[in-house]
C-alpha cells in the first residue's frame, strides 16, 4: 500500500521491541464487544489509476463555469487567477506545513500572513486585519459576537440587503445567546430605513456593500447613526474586487469589515474552501477573533514574525475566548496574498475597472433590449426583472448551455416579490460573445 512505509518484517521487529505479541494486543483497552473482526463494508484499496477514473467520471457529470457563458454571482464571483498562484501554493513547504506554533521554522507562513493582514487592512481601509476566517458568512457572524462584547449590548440589526446565507449564519451563531436579531425584509427596492431600527440595545448594524442586489450606497450616514447611538457598524462584503474601484468601508466609518476574499487567488470550488476576511479598528484589536501574526525580533536582533495576542484564543482563554475558532483558511489566504501581490496597486484597480466596465456594457445592452434592470448603481452585479418566474428560466437556459445568473428565489424562496428577479454578475472573464448570448436568451424570456 503506497502510503504505508512499514513492511511485515518491520512490524514483527517492532512488536518484538515493544514486547507485544500482536498489534491487536495493543488495542486491549478497547472493550471486546466493540472490536471489529475485519475491515468495514467498503471497497478495498485501489491504485491511482482506478481512483482517478472514478472521480474523473463524477467530475465529467458537471458543467464547469468556464465552459459556457457564465453570469452567476450572489456571493461567489468568477475571476481569472494567474498561473503562478497555484504553482506556488502547491510547494510542499506551504501545502504540507502546519499552524506556525514554532515560529523559528515557520517564518514563511508567518511572513505571508503578515503581508496578507496588511493587504486586507489596506484595501478595506481599516487599521488591522486577522489571518483569515473560514468564509465571509462566518466572519460576519463572528463580527456580531465581537460587537456584543465591545458594546456589552445584546442585539443585532441585519440589513435587508445582506446575503441571506450571511444573515442565517449570523442568526445561527447567536441562537443560544441572549440576543434579539432584527432581520429586515429583503431590500428589493433599495429604500430600507435601517437607521430607524437602531436602539439602545443594539450592538451592531450589519449592512452589505455592494448589497445582495448589487447596489452601492454611501454608508457614512449609517455609520454616523450607529456611533451616535453607541452601536458599531459592520460592513459585510461578498465581492472584494469592488474595493479596487469603490471607496473603502473604513473611509465611510465602518467599525468591522467581514468579507469573502475568495475572488482573489481561489477557484469557485462549489462553495468551499473559501477565505473570510476580518478587519477592525485598532482600539478593538484585543476583541478580534482568529489568529494574528505580529512583528518582533529574535535574540540576534533580526526581524521576524510570531503568532501573537493568543491569549484571546481558545487554547488559552478556553470558555472566555473571543471565539472557538482554531483553524484559519491558511492556504486560501496565501493564494489571495500571492494574487494580490501580482496585481499590485495598478493591477487591482485595473481589474476592478474592467469588471465595472463589462457590467456597464451589459446593463446598456439590457436597456437596449428592453430588459429591466432594477439598479441605479452597481459594481459588477445587477438585478434584472423577467416577465415570469426566474428559476425555471435559469434551468431552461442551463439546458441550452448558458448559465444566466442566480434566481433571487433560490435565496429568498418565501418572498413573492423575488419570484421574477434574477441576479446577474459579470466579471473580466465574460466575453462580448457571452454577453450577446445572454441578452439574446433573456430577450426570448422577456
Amino acid at each position, binding site marked *: 500500500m503506497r502510503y504505508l512505509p512499514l513492511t511485515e518484517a518491520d512490524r514483527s521487529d517492532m512488536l518484538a521491541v515493544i514486547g507485544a505479541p500482536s498489534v491487536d494486543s495493543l488495542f486491549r483497552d478497547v472493550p471486546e464487544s466493540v472490536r471489529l473482526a475485519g475491515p468495514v463494508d467498503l471497497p478495498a484499496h485501489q491504485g491511482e489509476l482506478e481512483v482517478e477514473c472514478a472521480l474523473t467520471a463524477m467530475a465529467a457529470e458537471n458543467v464547469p463555469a468556464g465552459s459556457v457563458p457564465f453570469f452567476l454571482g450572489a456571493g461567489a464571483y468568477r475571476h481569472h487567477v494567474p498561473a503562478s498562484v497555484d504553482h506556488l501554493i502547491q510547494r510542499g513547504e506551504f501545502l504540507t506545513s502546519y499552524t506556525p506554533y514554532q515560529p523559528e*521554522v515557520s517564518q514563511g507562513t508567518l511572513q505571508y500572513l*503578515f503581508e496578507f493582514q496588511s493587504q486586507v487592512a489596506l484595501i478595506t481601509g481599516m487599521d488591522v486585519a486577522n489571518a483569515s476566517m473560514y468564509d465571509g458568512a462566518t466572519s460576519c457572524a463572528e463580527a456580531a459576537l465581537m460587537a456584543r462584547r465591545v458594546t456589552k449590548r445584546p442585539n443585532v440589526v441585519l440589513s435587508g440587503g445582506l446575503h441571506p446565507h450571511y444573515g*442565517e449564519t449570523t442568526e445561527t451563531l447567536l441562537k443560544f445567546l441572549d440576543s434579539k436579531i432584527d432581520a429586515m425584509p429583503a431590500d428589493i427596492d433599495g429604500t430600507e430605513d435601517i437607521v430607524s431600527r437602531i436602539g439602545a440595545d443594539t450592538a451592531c448594524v450589519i449592512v452589505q456593500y455592494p448589497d445582495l442586489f448589487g447596489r452601492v450606497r454611501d454608508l457614512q450616514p449609517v455609520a454616523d447613526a450607529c456611533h451616535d447611538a453607541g452601536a458599531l457598524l459592520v460592513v459585510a462584503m461578498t465581492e472584494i474586487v469592488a474595493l479596487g474601484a469603490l471607496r473603502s468601508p473604513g473611509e465611510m466609518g465602518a467599525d468591522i469589515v467581514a468579507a469573502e476574499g475568495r475572488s482573489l487567488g481561489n477557484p469557485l470550488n462549489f462553495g468551499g474552501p473559501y477565505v473570510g476576511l476580518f478587519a477592525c479598528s485598532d482600539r478593538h484589536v484585543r476583541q478580534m477573533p482568529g489568529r494574528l501574526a*505580529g512583528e518582533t525580533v529574535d535574540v540576534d536582533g533580526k526581524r521576524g514574525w510570531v503568532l*501573537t495576542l493568543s491569549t484571546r484564543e481558545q487554547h488559552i482563554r478556553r470558555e472566555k475566548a473571543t471565539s*472557538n475558532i482554531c483553524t484559519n*483558511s491558511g492556504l486560501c489566504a496565501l493564494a489571495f496574498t500571492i494574487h494580490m*501581490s501580482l496585481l499590485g496597486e495598478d493591477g487591482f484597480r485595473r481589474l476592478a475597472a474592467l469588471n465595472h466596465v463589462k457590467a456597464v456594457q451589459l446593463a446598456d445592452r439590457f436597456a437596449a433590449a428592453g430588459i429591466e434592470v432594477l439598479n441605479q448603481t452597481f459594481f459588477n452585479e445587477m438585478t434584472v426583472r423577467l416577465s415570469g418566474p426566474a428559476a425555471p428560466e435559469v434551468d431552461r437556459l442551463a439546458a441550452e448551455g448558458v448559465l444566466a445568473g442566480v434566481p433571487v428565489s433560490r435565496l429568498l424562496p418565501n418572498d413573492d416579490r423575488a419570484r421574477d428577479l434574477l441576479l446577474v454578475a459579470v466579471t473580466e472573464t465574460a466575453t462580448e460573445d457571452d454577453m450577446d448570448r445572454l441578452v439574446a436568451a433573456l430577450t426570448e424570456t422577456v
Partner: protein
Amino acid sequence: MDGKMTETGTYTGNRGLRIEEPLIFEQDAPGRSGVDLPDPPPVQNRLGGLDRTGVIGLPGLSEPQVVRHYTRLSQKNYAIDSGFYPLGSCTMKHNPRLNEKLARLPGFADLHPLQPEATVQGALRLIDTLAHWIKTLTGMPAVAMSPAAGAHGELCGLMTSRAALEARGDARKRVLVPDSAHGTNPATAAICGYAVEAIPLNAHGRVDLAALKSALDGDVAAFMLTNPNTCGLFEDEILEQAQAVHDAGAFFYCDGANFNAIMGRVLPGDLGIDCMHLNLHKTFSTPHGGGGPGSGPVVLSDALASYAPLPWVVHGENGFRLVEHKGDAAAPAVPYGRMKAFHGQMGMFVRALAYMMSHGSDGLRQASSDAVLNANYLLARLSDVLSAAYDGPCMHEVLFDDHFLKGTDVTTLDFAKAMIDEGFHPMTMYFPLVVHGALLMEPTETESRESLDQFVDALRHLAARAKSGDAEAFHAAPIHAPRRRLDETAAARHPVLRWRPEKILNEAAE
C-alpha cells in the same frame, strides 16, 4: 553570551540557500505589476459617486519577483514533505498529490455553488458518496457535511444537541468536559449558552467514572469527550460513560480529532456516541496548508439527526438535490440553522474521498494499526530516557511529562528548541494541561521505521545531554533555524500587526 556569536559573516546576510527576504511592501515600484490586463475603455460609471479616490498602498512587483519572493518564503518553513512532524493530536500524515490533482479538475473546482442542480449532479454525487464512507466508517446513521473545520464541527454537534433538548422543552444548563480537554471544547460550550464543568482524570489518565456519574444530573446537557483521549489513551470505560450520560438524559459528544487510532477497528456508533466531528485535514490526509483550510463533518445518531443544520444532499426523483431551506426539509427534519455560506468544504471532500478510495477499507484499517504500532514503538524505545506519563499500551500518540528533566535546568520548551537544530519539528508541548511540561508525540502511519529510529536516537542523545548538565546549549537553541528564539513578549506588549508606510519616514528621521 549575546546574539553576536552567530554573525553570518556574509555581506548580504544570506547563508547559501538561506535568503533574508524583505516584505513585498519593501519591493514596491509604482506602476509595476505582475499581470497584464487590457485598458478598460472609458464609460459613464454607475458607482453612485462612490469612486475610490486616493492611493490604496499596494506594492507593485513583476511576476518573477513575486515568484521568487514566495519561493524564498516557502524555504523557511518546515513541512511534512521535509521531515518528521510528530505533533500530537494533529495527525501530520503524508498529503498525497493525487488528491491535489483531482481537486483541481475543472468539473469540481470550477463549479459555482448556486448553479442549477442539473449541472452539478456529479458534485452532489461526490458529497453523497463521501457521506456514505463516513457513515460506514463510524457506524452512524447520519452526517452533517457543512462545518468548515474541527472546531466548527464541534459547534455543530453541540448546537444539534441543544436543539434536540430544547425540542423536549429541557435545554439544561451545563456541559461536562474532562480536565484534559482541548480549549475549543469549553469555548464551544460557552457559545451554546452552557456553563462548563471539568471532570478530573483517574490515575490511569482516563476520565474518573465515579466523578462523571456524580456530576451528571438533570442540568447536564452533554458530556464532551475526546476518544482516544488527549493523553493518547483509549477510554476503556466509555461504554459505562455513555450509559451514565444517557441515563441522565444528556447527549454524548465525541471529539473525533484522534480517529486515526481506531479507524476501521472500532465504530464510534458502537460506543454510544450521539455526535462526533471528524477532521478531514487530520485523519483523511487533506493538507494542513500552514493552518487551514480544514473540514469538519459531524456524524449524528438517530436522536440528533433531525436537527442537523442546512444544507444537505438528498436523492430525488430526478437525481440529487440540495435542501437549502427549512421549508424544503421533509419531516421529521427540523434544522437548527446554517453554519456557513454554501454547502461545505467541497475541495476537501474531493481530497478526502480520493484518499479513502485509495486506501480502501483494508488500507484504512492497516493505517490505524500502523499508527498505533508506531506510537507504541516510540514509547518502548524512549521510556527509559524520557518519562512516560502513563503506562502503555498507548493509542496513536504517546504522552511524556518533564519529570526526566528534573534538576537539569532544561525545560520542555528548551528541549523542543534543541530538536529543531537536530532537524525535527518538535512534538506538541504543554498540552494536555493535566501533566507537567507535557510532550505529546504522534508519529502517524506514514513514517518508516528508519525515520522513527533516527528520531529516537536523536532524542536519546538530547536527553543524555540535558542530564549531563549542558543546559546552556539548550537555552541557546535553536541556532541553525532561519530565526532564533523570537521575542513574543514584545510582540504582545506592542503589537505590530501590519505594514505601515509611515514606518519608513520614521526610520529615516531617526
